[in-house]
């Protein structure tokens, strides 16, 4: 009787367990599908973002392998930030880099050093003679740009990030704008009117007024891109670019992993990097720990002389030894 009585009970228990397990699996699958759908844009964009497509550089010194595991994110590392005007005026396969900034991040010490490289700096480009350093990216993509900086400045670069004009505008808008104390009135009567414009060769006027303020993407771009009415020219805007990077770092403090899909879909081909998503995710908290006073900012102002070579205005390094000495204070070779 006991056995007879227990059979239906056991059978019922088995059915109940199966039902619970199947239900749990169902929830896991549907939950996973929900999460998958949420993060799908990030995964799709990640494939696009990390697709560098560099040409074969032969014997050119290759940038160091970026295989730095998440667990080693406490190790200091150097990133080369590259920014390009990539509007309709330019061949997308031969973009110049209007902005080149070396960034050294020491996550353990919570320190950052930024060094802007003047775009007109006239240097040897591996296998491509001597030219303005902004042409390295046009000649050979990120790898040649990295190799050129490594060779001339004798530094080791671990990763790179390239961003187009529109990408920066979108990034700033996506994080809700940036907050800066603009250093001076930035006025320009010949500012390129090449974003959202039917005539990429047109120009417009800009006026970014001084003082603490909230800038959206377009106005932040005007602030960092204008150079005509700055006595320091490209050096002046390099300082402003570093300022905006710091403002973005402040915003990065607030981002969470849930923001990654929006961030990724924002770029749509406007950002390329060899940083892994894991590493980017691991670095977000680092941004929160670095204090402004622990960020060192440098440019090549007073380390170059102007010259005209072949009808082209360029900057010649006035003293490479002095430049190397400056750079190696924060960027190891």
């Amino acid at each position: 009787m006991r056995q007879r009585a227990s059979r239906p009970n056991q059978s019922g228990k088995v059915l109940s367990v199966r039902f619970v397990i199947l239900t749990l699996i169902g929830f896991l699958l549907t939950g996973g599908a929900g999460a998958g759908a949420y993060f799908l844009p990030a995964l799709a964009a990640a494939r696009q973002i990390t697709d560098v497509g560099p040409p074969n550089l032969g014997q050119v010194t290759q940038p160091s392998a970026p295989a730095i595991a998440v667990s080693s994110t406490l190790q200091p590392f150097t990133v080369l930030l590259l920014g390009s005007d990539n509007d309709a005026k330019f061949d997308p396969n031969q973009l110049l880099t209007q902005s080149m900034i070396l960034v050294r991040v020491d996550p353990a010490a919570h320190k950052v050093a930024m060094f802007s490289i003047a775009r007109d700096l006239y240097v040897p480009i591996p296998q491509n003679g001597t030219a303005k350093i902004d042409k390295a990216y046009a000649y050979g993509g990120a790898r040649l740009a990295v190799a050129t900086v490594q060779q001339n400045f004798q530094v080791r670069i671990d990763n790179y990030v390239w961003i187009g004009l529109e990408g920066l505008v979108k990034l700033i808008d996506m994080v809700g704008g940036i907050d800066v104390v603009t250093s001076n009135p930035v006025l320009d009567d010949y500012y390129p009117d090449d974003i959202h414009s039917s005539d990429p060769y047109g120009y417009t006027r800009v006026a970014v007024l001084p003082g603490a303020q909230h800038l959206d993407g377009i106005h932040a771009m005007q602030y960092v891109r204008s150079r005509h009415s700055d006595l320091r020219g490209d050096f002046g805007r390099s300082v402003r670019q570093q300022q905006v990077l710091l403002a973005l770092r402040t915003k990065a403090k607030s981002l969470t992993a849930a923001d990654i899909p929006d961030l990724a879909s924002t770029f749509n081909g406007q950002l390329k990097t060899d940083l892994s998503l894991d590493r980017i995710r691991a670095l977000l908290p680092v941004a929160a720990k670095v204090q402004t006073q622990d960020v060192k900012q440098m440019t090549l102002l007073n380390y170059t002389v102007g010259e005209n070579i072949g009808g082209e205005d360029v900057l010649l390094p006035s003293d490479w030894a002095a430049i190397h000495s400056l750079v190696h204070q924060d960027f190891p070779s």
Partner: protein
Amino acid sequence: MVVFGYGVYHYLGSLKSRVTTEKAVAPAKAKFSLPGSVYVAQGGALYRLRAGSFQQIASGGWTQPSPGPTGQLLAVKREAQSSDLYLLDYDGHVVKQLTHNANTDVHLNHWSFYPRLSGDGQTIYYSWDPKDPGNFYRVDLAVYAMPVDGLQRQARAWTDPNQYTGGDVQPAPLKSGGLIYAKFGLTPDGKNISQLWLTTRAHATGTALTKEEDGCAQPALSSDGKRLAMVCTSAGQPSKLMLADFDGKALGPATVVASGLVGAPGWAPDGSGVLYLSGQDTTGHFQLFFQDLTPPAQIPAGPAAPASAKPTGPATPLPAPTPKPARQLTTSNDYDATSAPAWLAG
């Protein structure tokens, strides 16, 4: 289960940071009332705050309201390539367009910013960008003066800006004539500086009121002309709102009133306090704050520094008595932080 999957999707979406989702709203109510009327700018619209409520009085590119002749406001209307000064009545209706800076040739447009009425009410000081016939890339603002009842062609330059620096801005006229303004420049090693200068006549060299390294700008004089509010960055970020006594020739020691992302100070008509804007939390939207300066938090009138060609500036803030805490008037708005509040008695 499908509902669960859908729920997971939306739950993840709810974890997004506020910076990516929070939008500013139009001003409606303040947390407390202030006497008189305060005019502020947000998103190209002018708002009047009276008895704790905001009312939009004008829209479409407006900024930088300031007290004008009796019953009127001065304000800037900004277009894509130019900006102009206007006289408005208190309800935002245009009384008169004072400058005409628009041109069909892009590079022949001009900017007018920071209008301020002189102490005698006869002159409008403002910043304007003259064209440099020697180099069309140069665009620097200089302080100009034009008669309230005159024409723009009667305007005369008062200051000579440092070239390719952005120039001279934010005039604060003195009752006795002359003005304080912010002059931008560069150090020999290429660092941006801003400094307050006092000048009593057009094109005079004047006197530096603050030191280069203090990075001061945005001067605002109290209605009795005896105290100056200013924003100083000490060549870095963030900025500090500072107060100092002013004897007509030099500044006394300065006191820090607020720090962070602060700017755009505007005095109460009776000098009892200062309104300013400050960027809040992660959204960076600028809100209105009020710093009560009535006793016992009133900044003591320290001995005014003697008149000197050397700047006496705010380099060493005074150990001040504990001021009353600043009170936040608004939340969720996003005021134009380059536009100081205009506070009128009526």
